[in-house]
C-alpha cells in the first residue's frame, strides 16, 4: 500500500516549510521586541541623547534617567554650584553637571511600594478566597453552581469605568477613597473570579480518591483538604497567584480613577514623570523598565500555564 507510507510526512512538516515558518516567526518576534529594547536603551541615555535625531542606537550609557527617576532637582546658578561642597554621590554629580542640585527624593519609590503592597496583598487574598471557593465548587454539589460560576466570571467582564462610579461614591462614604485597603479589596474582588475559575480546573484534576483514602485513614474533610489537596494543587495555586499578581500590578483604569495621592500605584504615576521642558523620557523609560522586569520573569515562569490563565482555565495545553 504505497499511499499510506507518505501519511507521516503530512504530520511531520517538510524541512523547507519548517525553515520558512522559523524565519517568519523569528522575524515577527524580533520586530515585536523593538519597543521593549528601545525602552531598555532609553533608560540608559542622557535626556539630550534620548531625543536626538536620528534616534541613537550607539550612545554613551548614563544612569541619569535612573537618578532623575528617584530624585527631584532644582536649578541653580553655576556660581552657586561651584561654591558647594563636593558632590554627594553619583546622582548629585550628574545633576550638578546640568546646573542642578538634588532637592529630595521623588515620589517614584512610594508609588512603587504602593504597587507592591496592593498587588501582593490582593493576590494573597484572591488566591486564598479563590482556593476555598474552587474547592467548594469542585468537590461538593453546590445548588445553582453553574449560575454562580457564571456570576463570578461576569464580574470580571464588567468595564472598570462602569463600576468605578458607584465604587467611587461608596469608597467616599466609607473613607476608603485613595487608601491602599480600598484598592486591595477592589483588586481582590476583580481577581477572585479568575482565581476561582483557574483553580477549579486544577482541583478538578486531582483525583477525589486521594481525599477519600485520607478520610478513611481518619482525616477529617478539612484535614484532607489541607494535607492532601493543597499540596497537590500547589503548582496550580502558584500559577494562579502569578496571574492575579500580573493583573493587579498592571491595572490602570481603577487606579487612575480612584487614587490620586497616598494610594496611587505606579501605572498612573509614570506618565506624570516630568523633566525640565517636557517629559523626561530616560526617566520614564527607567521607570517602565523597573516596572516591567518582574512581569518578564513571571511570563517565563508561567509559559506552561499561560493558555489556562488567559482563558479562565477552560482551555488546556
Amino acid at each position, binding site marked *: 500500500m504505497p499511499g499510506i507510507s507518505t501519511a507521516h510526512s503530512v504530520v511531520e512538516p517538510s524541512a523547507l516549510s519548517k525553515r520558512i515558518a522559523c524565519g517568519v*516567526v*523569528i522575524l515577527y518576534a524580533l520586530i515585536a521586541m523593538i*519597543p521593549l529594547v528601545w525602552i531598555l536603551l532609553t533608560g540608559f541615555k542622557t535626556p539630550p541623547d534620548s531625543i536626538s535625531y536620528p534616534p541613537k542606537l550607539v550612545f554613551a550609557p548614563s544612569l541619569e534617567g535612573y537618578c532623575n527617576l528617584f530624585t527631584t532637582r532644582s536649578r541653580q546658578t553655576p556660581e552657586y554650584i561651584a561654591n558647594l561642597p563636593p558632590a554627594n554621590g553619583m546622582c548629585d554629580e550628574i545633576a550638578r553637571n546640568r546646573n542642578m542640585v538634588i532637592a529630595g527624593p521623588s515620589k517614584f519609590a512610594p508609588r512603587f511600594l504602593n504597587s507592591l503592597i496592593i498587588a501582593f496583598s490582593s493576590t494573597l487574598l484572591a488566591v486564598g478566597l479563590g482556593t476555598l471557593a474552587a474547592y467548594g465548587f469542585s468537590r461538593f454539589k453546590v445548588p445553582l453552581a453553574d449560575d454562580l460560576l457564571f456570576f463570578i466570571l461576569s464580574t470580571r467582564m464588567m468595564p472598570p469605568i462602569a463600576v468605578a462610579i458607584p465604587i467611587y461614591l461608596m469608597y467616599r462614604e466609607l473613607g476608603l477613597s485613595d487608601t491602599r485597603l480600598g484598592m486591595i479589596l477592589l483588586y481582590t474582588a476583580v481577581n477572585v473570579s479568575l482565581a476561582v475559575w483557574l483553580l477549579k480546573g486544577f482541583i478538578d484534576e486531582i483525583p477525589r480518591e486521594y481525599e477519600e483514602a485520607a478520610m478513611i485513614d481518619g*482525616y477529617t474533610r478539612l484535614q484532607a483538604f489541607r494535607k492532601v489537596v493543597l499540596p497537590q494543587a500547589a503548582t496550580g495555586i502558584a500559577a494562579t497567584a502569578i496571574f492575579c499578581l500580573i493583573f493587579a500590578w498592571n491595572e490602570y*483604569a481603577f487606579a487612575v480613577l480612584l487614587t490620586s495621592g497616598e494610594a496611587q500605584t505606579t*501605572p498612573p504615576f509614570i506618565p506624570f514623570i516630568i523633566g525640565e521642558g517636557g517629559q523626561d523620557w530616560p526617566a520614564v523609560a527607567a521607570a*517602565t523598565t523597573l516596572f516591567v522586569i518582574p512581569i518578564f520573569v513571571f511570563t517565563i515562569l508561567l509559559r506552561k500555564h499561560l493558555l489556562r490563565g488567559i482563558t479562565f482555565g477552560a482551555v488546556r495545553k
Partner: protein
Amino acid sequence: MTETSTVSHLARGAAEATPEPVARRVRGLSDRAIAWVFIAPTIILLLAINIFPLIWTIQLSFTNYRANRPNAAVTNVGVEHYSNILSDPDVWHSMQVTAHFVLWTIVIQTVLGFALAYLIDRKFRGHGFWTTVILIPMMLSPAVVGNFWKFLYQPQIGLFNYIVGFFTGMDPSSFQMIGDVRLAPWSIIIVDTWMWTPYVMLICLAGLRSIPDYIYEAAEVDRASAWRQFWSITLPMAMPFIMLAVLFRGIENFKMFDLVNLLTSGGPGSTTEVASITLKREAFEKWRTGYSSAFAIILFVTVFGLANIYVKALNRVKSR
C-alpha cells in the same frame, strides 16, 4: 449582617460535626456546610464590590445626582437619561469609534495571530523559545507600555516614524501618528495589535494542537491536497478556538480604556473617543453622575450579553 451570621452558624455546624470523620463523610450535611463556608466569602466580596455598586448605578441612572455636589437635591428623572443617551450624537459617535477599533483590531489580530500559530505549529527547532518571546507584550501593562509608545510615535524624534521613514523614504517628521485626525485611530490599533496578537496566537495554537494527527493521515490516504486539508480540516477544527479569541478580544476592546487614555485621551478632537473615554469624561470630568450611570448600564448590558456568549463558547470548546 444576616448573611454573616448564617455563615458563622454554618461554620459552627461544621465544627460540631468534626469528631467522627467517616460518619461525617457519609452524613454529607457537614460537607454542604463546608461548601458554603468555603464559597460564601467570595460571593459576599463580589456582592459588596460588584453587585452592590451595580445596583447603585442602576438606581443613580434614574436620577440627576452629581457626585461633585453631594448635598444638592436629587430628583428622579425616570428614563430620561436613557432616551437622551440613545439620541445623543456624541454617544453614537463614540460607539462608532469603538466599533471601528473592535472591528479592525479583531480582523488584523485574528489573521496575524492565526498565521503565526499555524507557522509555530510546524514545530521547527526552538519554537518554544520564540513563542515565549512573542507572548511577552501581552503580559505587560497597557498603560505603562502605551505611555512609552507615545514617545515612539513622536514625529521628530520617535523611533516609529524613523523606521517607517527608513523603509518608505518618507520624511519622518512629515506625519504625526497621534496628532493627525486620520492616523490617530491607527496609532492605537497598532499598539493594540502589538500587545494582543500573541493572545490570539496562543489560543489558535491550542486549537491547532487539539486536531488529532489521524485526521490528517486519513486525508492523506484520500489524497487530499495540502490546500484542501487546510480548508476542510485545519480551519474548521480550529474554528471554535478562533471564535473564542475573537469574542474575548471583542469584549476586552469594547471596554478598552488604558491604551486610549494614555496615547490620545480621545483626541485629536474626538476621533479616538471610545465609549470608555466618553464615560470617564461624563462621570469624572463633567460629573454628570446620573447620566453616566445610565451610559454605564448600557455598556454593561452589552458586555454582559457578550459574556453570556463567551461562556457558551467556552463550554463548547471544553466539551470537545
